[in-house]
């Protein structure tokens, strides 16, 4: 047990090189202010989880990093370059999997390399590693329609990892899975995050997921949202849910989050949409 602990990597340090820098980011849809003044720095190879009341704009913030949407103000830069559009340096995994139904598991996973004109043989070779690590071996030739939700999400994760983006953006990746599948996937994938060696930003609505997986949890406030808390989870990976210190972190984040949820509810009651 002790020897095992010694070899497990500790949380990636905060003093790492900044990878993603958000500076006074604002986002409004028409007259609705979704995000107001989000400023934060995410370090190289850090695993950051974003949590907040529903509708607080946390997914929108992720889409801004991905370059799918344009902010109404402020800048986001990745590797020092301002984000203006999506690019292969940032891989994305959605809650709804978003697989290409006309492609087999293998062809879904190799698409990123195919687009980058990597020869088919080499692409398949590079895909194998992630197929194995995500536990998809034997399913290479299956079509997505025949897979369960958990398997589909594995394909989406392997697909995002295979073309080797530097940043992985996860939008509620376990949100569409049932509790058992979700717990199994999280346990199963903990080592994958370590192996992947990526900067990871994960949006979630589950405090447990956030503290279990992330090095750092950013709590977004009620709309128009900004960051109300930045909690560092100082525990080695892989973690287990029954760790006492993990439960303390969970309680801490939950307390901040409930205050925000209360605030957003009372705001909604005061100004019904």
């Amino acid at each position, binding site marked *: 047990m002790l020897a095992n602990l010694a070899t497990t990597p500790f949380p990636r340090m905060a003093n790492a090189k900044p990878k993603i820098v958000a500076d006074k980011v604002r986002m409004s849809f028409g007259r609705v202010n979704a995000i107001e003044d989000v400023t934060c720095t995410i370090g190289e190879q850090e695993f950051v989880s974003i949590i907040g009341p529903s509708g607080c704009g946390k997914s929108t913030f992720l889409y801004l990093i*991905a*370059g*799918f949407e344009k902010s109404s103000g402020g800048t986001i830069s990745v590797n020092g370059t301002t984000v203006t*559009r*999506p*690019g*292969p340096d*940032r*891989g*994305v995994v*959605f809650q*709804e999997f*978003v697989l*290409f*139904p*006309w*492609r087999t598991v293998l062809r879904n996973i190799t*698409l*990123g390399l*195919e*687009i*980058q004109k990597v020869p088919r043989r080499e692409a398949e070779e590079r895909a194998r590693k992630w197929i194995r690590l995500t536990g998809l071996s034997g399913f290479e030739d299956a*079509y997505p*329609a*025949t897979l369960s939700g958990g398997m589909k999400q594995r394909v989406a994760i392997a*697909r995002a990892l295979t*073309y080797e*983006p530097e940043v992985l953006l996860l939008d509620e990746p376990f949100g569409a899975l049932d509790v058992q599948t979700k717990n199994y996937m999280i346990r199963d994938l903990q080592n994958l995050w370590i192996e992947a060696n990526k900067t990871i930003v994960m949006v979630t609505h589950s405090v447990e997921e956030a503290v279990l997986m992330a090095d750092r949890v950013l709590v977004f406030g009620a709309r128009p949202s900004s960051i109300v808390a930045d909690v560092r989870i100082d525990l080695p990976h892989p973690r287990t849910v029954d760790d006492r210190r993990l439960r303390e972190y969970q309680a801490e984040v939950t307390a901040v989050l409930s205050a925000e949820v209360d605030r957003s509810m009372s705001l909604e009651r005061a100004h019904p949409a």
Partner: protein
Amino acid sequence: MSADATILAPVRSRPDIRRLSLSIARPLISIGTVFLVWEVAARAGWINAFLFPPPSAIAATLWQELLSGELLQHIGRSLYRLLTGMALAVVFGTLIGIAIGMTAWGRAIFKPLISAFMPVPTLAWTPVLLLLVGINDRTTIIVVFIAAAFEVIYTVVSGIEGMSVRLFWVARSMGASRQQIFWKIILPGIMPYLITGIRLGSGYAWRALIAAEMLAASSYGLGFMIFDASEYMTMEVIYGGILLIAIFGYVIENVIVGRLEAATVEKWGVQVAR
């Protein structure tokens, strides 16, 4: 799903000989019974044998026409017009549909035109085309094109509207160019809908073709053959033509489109809401 498709569907997935022979036997029995009653009634003199010549006489006439080479000319000409018109409809219909579904200018230009012209029966164009193009293959090909193109455009647009914007996001985050998005995402993404469009469009096209051939074909074509035969009151040829139209219509809609479906939608396990 049409009735015959539900009979055929389990056969393809489960090659069970008993089921297969049943699925072939059932329609043959029902059609065969009609022909048998017809044959007996015509020969016994219960019905007017001039207006309703017995099926055996129709088959004999068709056989003669086949041997003379005339029949193959009629069939070949009709299929040439149909397939050429369909191919044009699929290519241009898909491109216009994608322009409408993906671009603001496409919507602005084409949507009002399509809303205005879609309800116009295809045959209403024939007199105009006759004056513009003349009595030749081009007229009938354009009629086929018009008949099928609206259906193709319509289903392609709904196909694109049915695709999640996130599919495009994933492709763009992989660094896909516009061409790559067209070939690797849009085309396969609309395929289930496009096939539905081809199925419906080929049905309309086939009907429009036969009618157009009656109005605007100088020689050859199944529609022309029937129209020509009515001048000489050769009822066997008229019925023979109707029979062939039914057979080829069935083959095009079910066998050719069915193959396309098996190779794509059914293989992928994708359901299309109709």
